């Protein structure tokens, strides 16, 4: 389906308002995150997994963002979900996209988000003994950490 059809279909399936524009931005409740990923892949045809990341909105909590594309029809979806204040759990997209394996590991490393049902959730860029998650707003750039050795 093309971008306009995708926008209408997503809006009615998930009961959310979606503004016109490129990319199509869909925000759903965290309970429907995996369902959204599956719908994007199977119904909208977004088989290309572009990236997954998160944003720390401080007291409003974390937001997980993923981008997937339908390369044949040039449809780009930006999938978003707010985890809510203090929540660090999120459904994993790894059952849907294999590209999510590394992206969610990075997201766990940088934000401390636990992706349920992830097959191999451990740090990827930082050392296993690292304390804290650097991309959280509460983690200051000059946070002291003990010497490597």
């Amino acid at each position, binding site marked *: 389906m093309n971008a306009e059809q995708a926008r209408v279909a997503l809006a009615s399936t998930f009961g959310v308002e979606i503004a016109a524009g490129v990319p199509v931005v869909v925000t759903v409740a965290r309970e429907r995150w995996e369902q959204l990923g599956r719908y994007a892949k199977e119904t909208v045809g977004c088989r290309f997994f572009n*990236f997954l990341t998160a944003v720390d909105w401080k007291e409003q909590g974390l937001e997980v963002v993923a981008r997937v594309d339908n390369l044949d029809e040039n449809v780009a979806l930006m999938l978003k979900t707010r985890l809510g204040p203090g929540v660090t759990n999120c459904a994993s997209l790894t059952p849907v996209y294999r590209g999510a394996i590394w992206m969610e590991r990075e997201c766990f490393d940088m934000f401390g988000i636990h992706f349920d049902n992830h097959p*191999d959730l451990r740090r*990827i860029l930082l050392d296993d003994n690292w304390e804290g998650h650097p991309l959280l707003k509460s983690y200051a750039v000059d946070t002291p950490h003990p010497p490597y050795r």
Partner: protein
Amino acid sequence: MDWSGPERLQMNMGPQHPSAHGVFRAIVTLEGETVVAVDAVIGYLHRCHEKLSETLTYAQYPSIASKTDYVAAMTSEFAYVLAAEQIGKFEVPKRAQYLRVIVAELQRIASHLLWLGTWCMDMGGALGGGATIFLYCIREREDILDLFEALVGARLLYGFFQVGGTRYDLPDGWIDKCRATVDTIDARIDEYEQMLEDNAFFLARTQSVGTVSRDLAQDVGIAGPLLRGSGVNYDIRKNAPYSSYEDFDFTVPVETAGDCYARYRVRMAEFRQAIAIIRQALDTLPAGPISSRPALKSVAQIRIPKGEAYARVEGPRGEVGSYIISDGSAKPYRMKWRGASFSNLAILPHIIPGHKVADVVAIMGSVDPVFGEVDR
């Protein structure tokens, strides 16, 4: 991951391994000579660019952005300024757009040359002396670095892009030098192809090795020559043109086999397309200003309104993207790098098992990872 089994051996490749093109550790589990599992250990070059960019202004960060992918520094600067321009709705003068295209395509040639040379060296003496093609490629890449040096004064990390345009205009005589350089490279590409494609060892080591299916390629999100080598006809320059790419006449090379040889073929064809784009851009280069940005009195002078944008460019290794969320200040609230090499490298655990140890080197090289961009 199952490491057990009576006849299994775990072997470390890296982090200091000549074929790794950087610091990369692959823990491979072997059954005899055959690899059954790979665990990729990355992060040795991690500098947390995403956190760093939250502390630097839109005037400061572009020249730091080049340090993510230091083999194609122009590309990462490009993606960052595009994202900032999208949110701030900055006009970029036509001449600046063309200059950006010229340097991006020169960068693609330089990056592919380094890839070809090092990859063939990895596969060693079977290719008629191993280092021969490496030295040939480095010789040509040098000419392009000379062009960049004449343009910005630096050979590796440029700081050529700024929000609103480019920082430098072409010096006198640059256009002629650039034409001469691409003419030379154009002729020499044929020579490399002959050297390699008439070589039975090269074909044996690359054909049907490291095959990526169309489905797996999209599922993992690999991009650029890897994606097009797996039969997906997708190039951002064509499918979502930016910076006036729609003005130029070029084709997108696609191969369907998905193996190392297909990726090689795609990149070889891209050399010629890049040269064609550079020639057209030099022929039709518009006159005019190179930036719409007024001179800065302070680094915090550029402010862009609240909003977010994801801008991407087709780099030598595929989609390089910058996702910026702005809170209206002089620095991004959040910036995500979509590093092409990170996504491309994620394909390794899916394709290496089943191959011999020697093929690991050929496959890794065909992915063309740059670890500055993997680790960011």
